[in-house]
């Protein structure tokens, strides 16, 4: 673990009660949203592949909450929570999972391809490592236009073994791009453990080859994640210095809804659940007298109602019109 002392600015923000409760609420919203998603998948309301963020909430909220509205996020196919954390409407996300016209991608993308231009959630991509070069391109555009924006590129441990990862880190450092690369190290690339796929198992060390800032943080501790991300985002924004942040976390469910989960021991899953980030952060809030049991329960009820409303919205939304099959293949309709 390589963590500097908490900078003063961060300490101030993170001791602010409303900020802390907001972080907790977002984590809870992602958890409840994903639980409901699993339920809807089992009811066949959702088709295709479906990858859940359950277990990774502290990593997601700790990183994405450090961004401004005008900052960009590029993500992968396990991205429902990433979109929520970037402010994308839960209703539009659920509608997309349902394949409805009101979804973030008008039912053309589904679970793996959420998108929101206004929120600068620049997409879920389903080819491992594919979006890292795109994040670099957006970083280049930011420098080109001399804007004070930052790009966050989020991907799994498995992506650090692919060529695009290395090409991206290289140019990010070479061209001084404002990109924060976030490895969501949930220990498995599909069913293959990190130690069976990567020669280096402390993935942050891959930054060293590019003379780039590399950090490793406990991805189950939202405040630790937020603290280090704040610093890396500031470094990207102010000094155009990219960085690689490894968040060590765990997904409680299988790789996707169709994963029988036979490659890891039940004991291992149980041990990680005992370190559950929402549980631990809730205890912290109570210990610090920032929230009572009742407050947290009330918040949970509110969040569940929000998720239920998203399901209702998705369920009642219209399907895409068959006549629109060819819409948006090209930017000019005549070419479609």
């Amino acid at each position: 673990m390589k963590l500097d002392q908490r900078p003063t600015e961060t300490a101030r923000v993170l001791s602010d009660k409303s900020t802390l409760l907001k972080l907790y609420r977002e984590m809870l919203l992602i958890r409840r949203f994903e639980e409901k998603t699993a339920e809807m998948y089992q009811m066949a309301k959702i088709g295709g592949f479906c990858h859940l963020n359950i277990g990774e909430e502290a990593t997601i909220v700790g990183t994405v909450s450090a961004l401004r509205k005008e900052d960009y996020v590029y993500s992968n196919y396990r991205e429902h929570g990433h979109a929520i954390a970037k402010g994308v409407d839960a209703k539009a996300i659920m509608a997309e999972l349902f394949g409805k016209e009101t979804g973030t991608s008008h039912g053309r993308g589904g679970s793996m391809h959420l998108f929101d231009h206004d929120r600068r959630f620049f997409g879920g991509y389903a080819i491992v490592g594919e979006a890292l070069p795109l994040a670099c391109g957006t970083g280049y555009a930011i420098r080109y236009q001399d804007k004070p924006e930052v790009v966050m590129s989020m991907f799994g441990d498995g992506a650090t073994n692919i060529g695009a990862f290395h090409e991206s880190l290289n140019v990010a450092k070479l061209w001084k791009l404002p990109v924060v690369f976030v490895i969501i190290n949930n220990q498995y690339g599909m069913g293959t453990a990190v130690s069976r796929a990567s020669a280096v198992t402390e993935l942050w060390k891959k930054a060293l080859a590019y003379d780039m800032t590399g950090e490793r943080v406990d991805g189950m501790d939202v405040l630790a994640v937020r603290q280090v991300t704040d610093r890396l985002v500031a470094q990207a924004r102010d000094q155009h210095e990219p960085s690689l942040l490894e968040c060590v976390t765990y997904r409680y469910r299988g790789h996707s809804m169709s994963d029988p989960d036979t490659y890891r021991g039940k004991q291992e899953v149980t041990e990680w659940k005992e370190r559950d980030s929402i549980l631990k952060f809730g205890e912290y809030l109570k210990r610090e007298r920032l929230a009572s049991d009742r407050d947290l329960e009330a918040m949970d009820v509110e969040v569940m109602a929000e998720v239920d409303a998203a399901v209702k919205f998705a369920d009642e939304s219209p399907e895409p019109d068959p006549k629109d099959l060819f819409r948006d293949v090209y930017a000019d309709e005549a070419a479609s």
Partner: protein
Amino acid sequence: MPILSIRDALNQALREEMQRDPNVFLLGEDIGLYDGSFKVTRGLMKEFGEKRVLDTPIAEEIIVGTAIGAAMAGLRPVAEMMTVNFIMVAMDQVVNAAAHIRYMFGGGIKVPIVIRTPGGGGHQLAAQHSHSHENWFAHVPGLKVVAPGTPADAKGMLKSAIRDDNPVMFVENEGTYAVKGEVPDGEHLVPLDKNEVKRPGDDVTICAHSRMLLVALDAAKDLEQLGISAEVVDMRALRPLDMAPVIESVRKTGHAITVEEGWRSFGVGAEIAARIYEEAFDDLDAPVARIAGAEVPTPYNKRLEKLAFPAKADVIVTARALLGKN
């Protein structure tokens, strides 16, 4: 009208578009300080600086990916793939990203990039440096694909491609950079979706693009001497594929030949022939004849290599056979 080579016509198009729109920038391997592997970008780094003429590492996936990500944030990148052979390394970015992003995100964003890349063989560069892949690109919805064969079209189509809001694969040919012709000064735009008759004729329709267009035009001259009037249609717009001038021509001639450098199977000629059968079957007096590259990895040996690519003689022999004049 000024006479320019295709190389200089492309250079002029890039310069004019960069002067017109500050969001246009170039990126690629050795395009700046080195002036470009084929000198298409000569002098541009000196004129526009390193920010707008970006030399990249030899890393094709990052070149295309950077172009896409920059386009999504509002720029208009023109990426040079030094040769089309190297784009295999970046095909995920071309197909899964550039071509699909707009549709899979429900029309929420556009990806206005141009990928310029020369292909073709005939220079003793062997199997890995002699490909023609325009049919691979033209297979993909979401991409536009053009392959001009004359200096005027090279300039006019590149300018249109840079202004287009879609990903455009701009296929050049290593063997035609020095070909010269008249090129209009300044604002000269050629649409990306219009094919045209480059030489009128009555007996047979010859469809060809890029370097093979020049071969077809050359063959048509000789055919004239042999008493065959060939109409040559330039298939510079491959996707969307403009078949109108071909169909109109076939209705008149009743005979059609396709010529391409790439392999025959599943090739450009296959698509053109199928469309002719669908739209003008009753006008044909004979099956469509396809002339294409030999289906081998391109050999190095000069004599063997020559056998691997279509030449003027192939067009002449095929036309005569098709018209029963052998």
